[in-house]
């Protein structure tokens, strides 16, 4: 619909009523941001494929097993996001683009920048300094900047898809996850190519344990979540001065950078010996603050999203047979919705749980679509689905006391 260079580029001050109702898709061939995003992802894809082709030739077992293991790891994260209904925030292509940006676009540019910073540190200070502080100096600034650039491009591609903090945060988390997974896969293959034993399975298990299990929760997905909050705040508070909005965005970026810097730094390493148990304790001590910070940002975003959904549901979906009072209360509380599903599953069986899950998701889709298009033909499918699911669910939950 909207295109660059059109005569109607007058911005939001134009009477809103003149423009068609709806949200932009993430397929925007008329927008420069879309093509920049796509070009950088494709460029990164070639680089990544080229890099892994060497791994496949030298350590084929590691490469295949690594792909499998880190693929499953990604799916576990996606499962958590889905369980919390976070994937309802956008159509699937948004998450694919965010993940691909993190894993392909950002990784491609991160490699030379990190090498250059570490090279400069070695030349201007010393190789000893780089060995200790190189990862802390190079990684955070480069990687947080590049991951966030993808989030900004995605927001540019379809700005009106981002109505809440949560809608930006989940894209940031997905970009971070993409970076994390491809980086982990790359480390696994590289470690195997230089592993001191012929075994090709150990490097995968070792990296899964250290980078996946001990570090996974407080890694790139968490940092990019924090940095993305600044973008969300900038975007969703046009009533504040530009200086304030930029300051909040910079502050969030600085916080993400600081968390990443602490994680990459050698601090605390002297206090712990080299055993896996001690290493696990040290990683937890360094990583838990990042997880708590990311958790707080998620909490703020979920609350704001809840208030947003409540307001929309109250206005657009007043019918109680579509969203009952207790369901309305839980609209903005993904954990409570999950708890209800789980309790229904325990009490009334798996089918009841599945139906309740579908019902909750259809309600969310109804509210979001009503907000996008208003009630009418566009929302009818979801209204019918809700009524059908409720009819199917009712006998199951009434069968037992």
């Amino acid at each position, binding site marked *: 619909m909207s295109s660059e260079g059109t005569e109607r580029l007058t911005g939001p001050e134009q009477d809103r009523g003149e423009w*068609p109702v709806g949200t932009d898709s993430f397929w925007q061939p008329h927008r420069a941001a879309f093509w920049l995003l796509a070009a950088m992802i494709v460029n990164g894809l070639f680089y990544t494929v080229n890099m892994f082709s060497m791994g496949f030739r030298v350590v084929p077992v590691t490469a295949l097993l690594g792909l499998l293991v880190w693929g499953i790891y990604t799916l576990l994260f996606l499962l958590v996001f889905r369980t919390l209904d976070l994937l309802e925030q956008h159509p699937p292509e948004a998450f694919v683009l965010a993940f691909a940006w993190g894993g392909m676009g950002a990784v491609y540019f991160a490699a*030379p920048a990190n090498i250059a910073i570490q090279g400069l540190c070695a030349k201007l200070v010393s190789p000893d300094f780089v060995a200790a502080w190189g990862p802390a100096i190079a990684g955070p600034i480069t990687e947080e900047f590049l991951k966030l650039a993808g989030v900004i491009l995605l927001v540019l591609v379809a700005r009106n898809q981002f109505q809440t903090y949560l809608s930006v945060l989940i894209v940031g988390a997905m970009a971070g996850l993409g970076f994390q997974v491809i980086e982990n896969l790359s480390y696994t293959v590289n470690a195997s190519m230089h592993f001191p034993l012929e075994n090709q399975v150990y490097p995968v298990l070792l990296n899964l344990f250290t980078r996946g299990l001990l570090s996974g929760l407080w890694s790139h997905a968490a940092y990019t979540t924090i940095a993305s909050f600044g973008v969300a705040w900038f975007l969703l508070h046009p009533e504040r001065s530009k200086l304030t909005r930029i300051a909040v965005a910079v502050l969030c970026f600085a916080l993400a950078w600081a968390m990443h810097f602490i994680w990459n730094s050698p601090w605390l390493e002297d206090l712990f010996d080299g055993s896996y148990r001690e290493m696990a304790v040290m990683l937890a001590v360094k990583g838990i603050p990042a997880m708590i910070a990311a958790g707080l940002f998620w909490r703020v975003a979920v609350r704001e999203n809840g208030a947003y959904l409540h307001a929309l549901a109250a206005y657009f979906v007043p019918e109680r047979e579509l969203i009952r009072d207790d369901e309305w209360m839980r609209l903005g509380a993904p954990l409570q919705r999950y708890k209800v599903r789980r309790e229904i599953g325990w009490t009334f069986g798996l089918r009841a749980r599945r139906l309740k899950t579908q019902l909750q998701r259809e309600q969310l889709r109804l509210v979001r679509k009503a*907000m996008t298009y208003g009630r009418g033909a566009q929302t009818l499918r979801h209204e019918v689905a809700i009524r059908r699911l409720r009819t199917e669910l009712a006998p199951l939950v009434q069968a037992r006391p």
Partner: protein
Amino acid sequence: MPEPSRRIPYRTWPGALAVLLAIAAYVGGLTFWNNHTPGTRPLPIGQTVSVGHARFEPAAGWEMDVARSKAGRSLMLFKGGHKFLVSTAPWVGGPDGPLVRQQRLMERGQRLEIDGDISDFVTSWGLQGKTFAYYGSKLAGRFWQVVDLQRKSLVQIDFYGASDGLNEAMAEARSMLESMDLEASP
């Protein structure tokens, strides 16, 4: 009163251009700066240098590549188009350590050809291990590996470079290897 969202047109090229320029300036600027910052360090003649357990005397004219050396793990020396890389790591098993994997990395990963068979070598200091030669379209080289079971230490020495002046450089690489022992404290 909530209103349905509207598809209001807007320009993205200024924002996209700003992102592109920021990335180009950041990555390009750093790379340019790094490439134009000298990274060589002359080594004192007659004195030994060490990396991990390995200690040796650099030949005259060889300099240290600071950016490609990793403290305690590897030391890259170069002279003209020839490189002499000494890497150390803990030995964790196998009488020949990761020699087979090293060959596979060179053959399948770097598209190099192994020249002849793996052979044993012993230096005048009693350092012994395995060695093989290799070549590619633009370079040739020799790889030496020493496994010290007592110290559980692995030392790999990789010499390579362009064919021009290879024999002279190889003689100097051998002299550096001859001077090597594993008595350094890591």
